[in-house]
């Protein structure tokens, strides 16, 4: 039972001052084993804050990040799943699911976590699953102003993943979940 937090696109301090208070009260250290951040934090204090939540932190570089040394893409293995991170501004058209599927096949991962669109999506194709945790602060994106703060928590247990989606809608936290299993024939191409 491994808990992996996926979030990104906070744009602190440029577009938002901080994570919503309700999110911050839920995110306490000691519960989460890994953090995957899609990028656009933007500055060091956010990195430090995420480090306090969990020492195992994986970040990919967003176009507004002040730290230039984050990698463009990153892959890691957790349990039976291979996960990949990429901010997504490099993939054109932005947010296009087929192009992201191409990136996923290139990285050869089961779950690809991307951002940039500031909208939550979870999309399944033959190569695997693409998850976009949205923007954790609800910052405006290059495309739209209408953004709900959201992030994703994945519970990886053997061959099964339960994805809990946390969204702040009208000041209340709403939690949904998505369940999927990895079949062993997924990557047999």
């Amino acid at each position, binding site marked *: 039972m491994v808990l992996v937090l996926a979030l990104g696109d906070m744009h602190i301090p440029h577009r938002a001052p901080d994570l919503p208070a309700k999110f911050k009260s*839920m995110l*306490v250290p000691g519960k989460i084993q890994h953090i995957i951040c899609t990028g656009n934090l933007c500055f060091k204090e956010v990195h430090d804050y995420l480090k306090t939540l969990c020492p195992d932190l994986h970040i990919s570089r967003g176009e507004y990040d002040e730290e230039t040394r984050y990698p463009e893409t990153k892959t890691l293995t957790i349990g039976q799943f291979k996960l990949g991170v990429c901010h997504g501004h490099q993939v054109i058209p932005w947010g296009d699911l087929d192009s992201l599927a191409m990136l996923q096949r290139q990285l050869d991962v089961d779950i690809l976590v991307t951002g940039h669109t500031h909208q939550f999506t979870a999309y*399944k194709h033959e190569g695997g699953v693409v998850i976009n945790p949205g923007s954790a602060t609800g910052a405006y994106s290059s495309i739209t102003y209408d953004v709900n703060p959201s992030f994703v*928590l994945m519970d990886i247990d053997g061959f099964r993943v339960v994805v*809990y989606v946390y969204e702040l809608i009208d000041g209340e936290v709403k*939690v*949904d979940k*998505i*369940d999927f299993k990895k079949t062993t024939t997924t990557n047999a191409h």
Partner: protein
Amino acid sequence: MKKKAVPEWLNSSIWSTSPAMNSTTTTTTSASASADLVHRYSPSSNPYIYDDDDVDPPAPPPPPPPPDTVRRDVRDRDPGRLGDYDRDDEGPSAEEISRQALLLTEVSKKMINIGELRRLACQGVPDNAGVRPMVWKLLLGYLPPDRSLWPSELAKKRSHYKNLKTDLLVNPSEITRRLEDSLYSDSKESKGPPIGMLKRSEIAHGEHPLSLGKSSIWNKYFQESEILEQIDRDVKRTHPDMIFFSGDSAYAKSNQDSLRNILIIFSKLNPGIRYVQGMNEVLAPLFYVFKTDPDEENTAAAEADTFFCFTELFGGFRDNFCQQLDNSNMGIRSTIARLSQLLKEHDEELWRHLEVTTKVNPQFYAFRWITLLLTMEFNFSDILRIWDFLLSDPEGPQETLLRVCCAMLILVRRHLIAGDFTSNLKLLQHYPPTNINHLLYVARRIICVLQHVILDSYSLGSVSCL
């Protein structure tokens, strides 16, 4: 006290009955071996007529058959040898043999007389006959005295434990998965769209991993994880010198897992006391004895048996571990006060020297002795021997423990009286290796004057023991 005539016990009926012992072959061999040795050595006294206040020390002084002294020397001389289970191979004395044979007869009867068993076990259960697990289970009340009830009792308790494990040892992921599998049929899950947006579904009861609700299984899980971590740390540190408990072997790892499971389940079932450091030490000898049972079936179910026996044994001592009760009549301070009172009754000079002259507060040494049931003061095989004594006393382990502690103090009285605070404390906190039989003999002689002690402790109870 050498008897020239053939002693009575030689003509006793146990030699004439055919060995209808259904347990291991060692019982029959030890019976015949003992019969042999009986003819070879002439015993010095009636061996098995032991009252609790007998006059003869168990170790026969004259004329010592050579194997006997060798055995005693080996025990005296060897503090560092730990985890070695076979020590009496040099040929025990004749009365040892006959006593052991009596014990073995007793446990192989159909209807066991627990009082008789207690009396025999008091002198020590033979190490290599493999009966210790059975004897301990009988003494702790896990097995009923009627042998025919054993299979059903054992099966019941073991399946109960298995249920406890499936209920209590799961993490929240498992629980949610089971809830869902029972709510939805499996076929629906696997027929998800091969391509397309994944469907979001509602969560049940607001249960998500970051939930801060009091009744949330996730929240409870994280709150308990601290205790689990402590249990884990302590289990890893139990008896680091014994291969059984520590090291990289799969055997040690599985034993550690068993210990961990038992402690976790115990802490979940007893929210009042949870887990306190030291419970692992009390658990370790129990588990060791049950796991090294020569009977295969018992070894496989050692974890379940240990859990129930531990609960039983611990029941008598749990007040010592409960912090709230520390200062009350039931807690550890009062127990230590009783020990102090006991010492005063039996050896006033030593008591005065310790408490008044050198001001060695008994809490400095007796705390560990009492709470851990002496598991950290002696080497492992001695611990088992002492526990034979503790468990077999009909007055209960708590009282016997105090007697043994008192005996420990009396045995080193010479050093204590000659020493000052530092040396006394050092001596008592690192108790020197000693002849266990002699220690237990002295302990038996100390008659615990219970009534007086309790009355006195009421006046002493809330004041520190000086």
